[in-house]
């Protein structure tokens, strides 16, 4: 029973992080029709901003230091940490805005695939800067609760898991209400038909900018919560999360449907539950399934779902015109 609870907690926590990343993809896709392959690089940059703020107490090329940051060897309190988190997210959003202005805006109206590949190019171009900053040592993101955990009916549940779940819940609520706001409606209109939206007086450029800003912030949020113990980088930004990150999330958004907010959350939870439970309960069959089989479970689930429902569980079916 403890094992079941532990596994479930881990699955939901991982699912929450997947969901945050999924929301980032969906926001950008719904607003701008771009499948953002650069999410990996952006999210890692966001986590790096966090580390620079909290561990280095300010950017090396700026003349002032961060007065809020905890002294050497101390950890920030939860409230202070959240303040830093917010600043890091804002910085990530600014990065998203810049990328959108430089690379995405000129491509408005181009085929979907060209837009997706542009982000692939961005990913490749940004990555060396990220890797460079983390090359030598792990960079701390100063998680206040470190490796602490709670006990629930004999099961040990790390605080990081709960934090990830809370973060995902807040992100989902935020995005949900955002879509119901006046601006969210504008965004949906733009996604539906750019020209018609323009004719209605909607500023399409601003919609693009907002979508990318929010998307980048969400991507950074996902990476920071994935950088906590006991997830592999354990409280630091490291080379480890980055290369694999985005390709673990792709099945999530495909499963949920590229343009569905609820789908991103459902897809994230579903994929994580399949992945973690398969890892936990099929482990005695590793000889048959092959080592590391749980890594490809998301892809198998994705393939099966797609062959039954080609636009994901919640995605909108494309109407094929001649």
């Amino acid at each position, binding site marked *: 029973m403890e094992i079941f609870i532990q596994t479930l907690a881990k699955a939901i926590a991982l699912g929450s992080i997947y969901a945050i990343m999924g929301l980032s993809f969906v926001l950008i896709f719904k607003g701008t029709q771009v499948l953002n392959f650069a999410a990996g690089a952006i999210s890692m940059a966001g986590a790096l901003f966090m580390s620079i703020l909290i561990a280095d107490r300010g950017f090396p090329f700026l003349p002032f230091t961060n007065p809020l940051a905890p002294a050497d060897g101390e950890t920030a309190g939860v409230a202070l940490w959240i303040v830093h988190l917010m600043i890091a997210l804002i910085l990530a959003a600014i990065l998203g805005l810049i990328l959108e202005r430089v690379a995405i805006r000129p491509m408005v109206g181009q085929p979907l695939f060209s837009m997706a590949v542009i982000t692939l190019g961005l990913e490749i171009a940004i990555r060396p800067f990220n890797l460079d900053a983390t090359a030598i040592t792990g960079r701390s993101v100063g998680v206040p609760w470190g490796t602490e955990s709670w006990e629930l009916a004999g099961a040990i549940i790390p605080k990081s898991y709960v934090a990830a779940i809370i973060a995902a819940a807040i992100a989902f609520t935020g995005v949900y209400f955002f879509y119901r706001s006046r601006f969210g409606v504008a965004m949906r209109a733009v996604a539906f038909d750019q020209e018609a939206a323009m004719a209605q007086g909607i500023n399409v450029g601003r919609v693009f900018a907002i979508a990318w800003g929010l998307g980048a912030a969400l991507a950074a949020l996902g990476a920071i919560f994935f950088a906590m113990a*006991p997830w592999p980088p*354990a409280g630091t930004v490291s080379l480890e999360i980055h290369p694999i990150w985005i390709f673990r999330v792709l099945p999530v958004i495909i499963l949920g449907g590229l343009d569905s907010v609820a789908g991103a959350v459902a897809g994230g939870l579903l994929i994580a539950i399949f992945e973690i439970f398969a890892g936990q309960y099929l482990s005695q069959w590793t000889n048959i399934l092959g080592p590391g089989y749980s890594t490809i479970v998301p892809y198998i689930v994705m393939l099966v779902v797609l062959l039954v429902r080609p636009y994901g569980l919640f995605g909108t079916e494309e109407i094929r015109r001649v």
Partner: protein
Amino acid sequence: MKLKQLLALLMALGLVAAACGGSDDDSSSGSDDGDTATAESSDDGDSGDDGDDGDDGDSGDDGDAMEEGAEIATDFGVTDTQIFVGINGDLSGPFAALVSEIVESQVVYWEMVNERGGIAGREVVPLVLDSGYATDKGIENFEEFAQEGDGGVVMITENTGSPITAAIAEDAADNDLLVIPLSWASLWPAEENVAILEKQTTYCIESMNGVEWLKNKVEADGKEAKLAIISRPGEYGLDGATGAQIAAEELGIEIVYNGIDQVAGDDRTAVISQLVDSGATMVWTTVTPGELADVFGQAVSQGFEADWSGNGPSFSYPALLPTDLAPLFDQYYWQSGYSVPWNGNDSEGMQELVSEMTARRPDAVLSDQYITGWIEGIMAETILTQAAENGDMTRAGVVAASQQVSIDFKGISPNQSYNGAYNDIVVRGSYIFDVDAEAFNLQPLSAGEGSSGMIPIEENYIGTVAASYQFDGPCI
């Protein structure tokens, strides 16, 4: 612009030093066979008064006939004034952080050698190429080093990684190009791999020592020794895990979870769940630091308590000690390694390394990796010096010279010989460190303090299994 001036200065200094004659005559080991004249780095230049003490009967050269530097036979990579050696390193791939420090210290080593007059009156020039740990790029770099003309080298003093080394092994033999691999896999004892020089101990032996040490520790703590082995696929993982398995069989330890090859892919839930279920009291890991952080972090967070250790590359203090897992590593993990950590003992070699590195790279950050680069430098210098004494600095001559030498690392790593049967010469000693998260403090070298957090508890440890094990080829 600075580089050239520096080189000119170094050469000038070198000439002065050579003219002044031998200043520091450290007598080399020469303990086993009296006739292998080894490593007299200082006075082999152009002073020309050093009739070889005892000639090398086995190599069949004409002994004293060629005692002047000018008469040394050469083919590629050696000119009258320069010796080119190649470094095929991973400076941008997954091991860039480690390898760039290793390469840095090897470069410093050559700076020091050149200042003392070089080898056979020639300046040693290391050429560095980056493989990014990609096999095809590594092969391309090798071809560049192996070319028979400008840009070719006389030996490769570092080749990062087992995969690339495996890919070039055959070509290296064809080209008679001596290679020092940056890999401790026990893959190279075979006859046809004479051009690949294994250095220090192997993963396989390291695992035997580590498991034996862990067993003693666990039993001293009053627990029953129950071993779990986890490793990643690939030669590294298989070699380390095989050694652990051999040790467990010989020592009669029960293996409660055998996770050989199981740490693969990005999700390790299966491994963690089986590990936690197994009830092991000791864990041997042959993985990467990222994988270790995942498995270790999640297993411990699920309440799994055991003593952990693993092959050297499993753990990396710069990557893992800044993480939130640091106190847990301090408590449960014991690092294993191949040489003394930075400033870890008072040996002559360590003092030289520390003072040279500090003087030449004051801004560089303290690192245990410098020792590995230094060791590669000592190996290459000893071999090239031997080749010069043999009067044959052709590529084939260097390969032949490598089979005659015994190398004295002056206390920073177990001494090594290539002169004998594999089972007689293989290095069987490894090092075991206590992970000390409190002591961990990376400072620039100029500060003269700080520590990697690796506190030696066993130096040159040889367990009973490793001491007597007879190899009939690679472990795996």
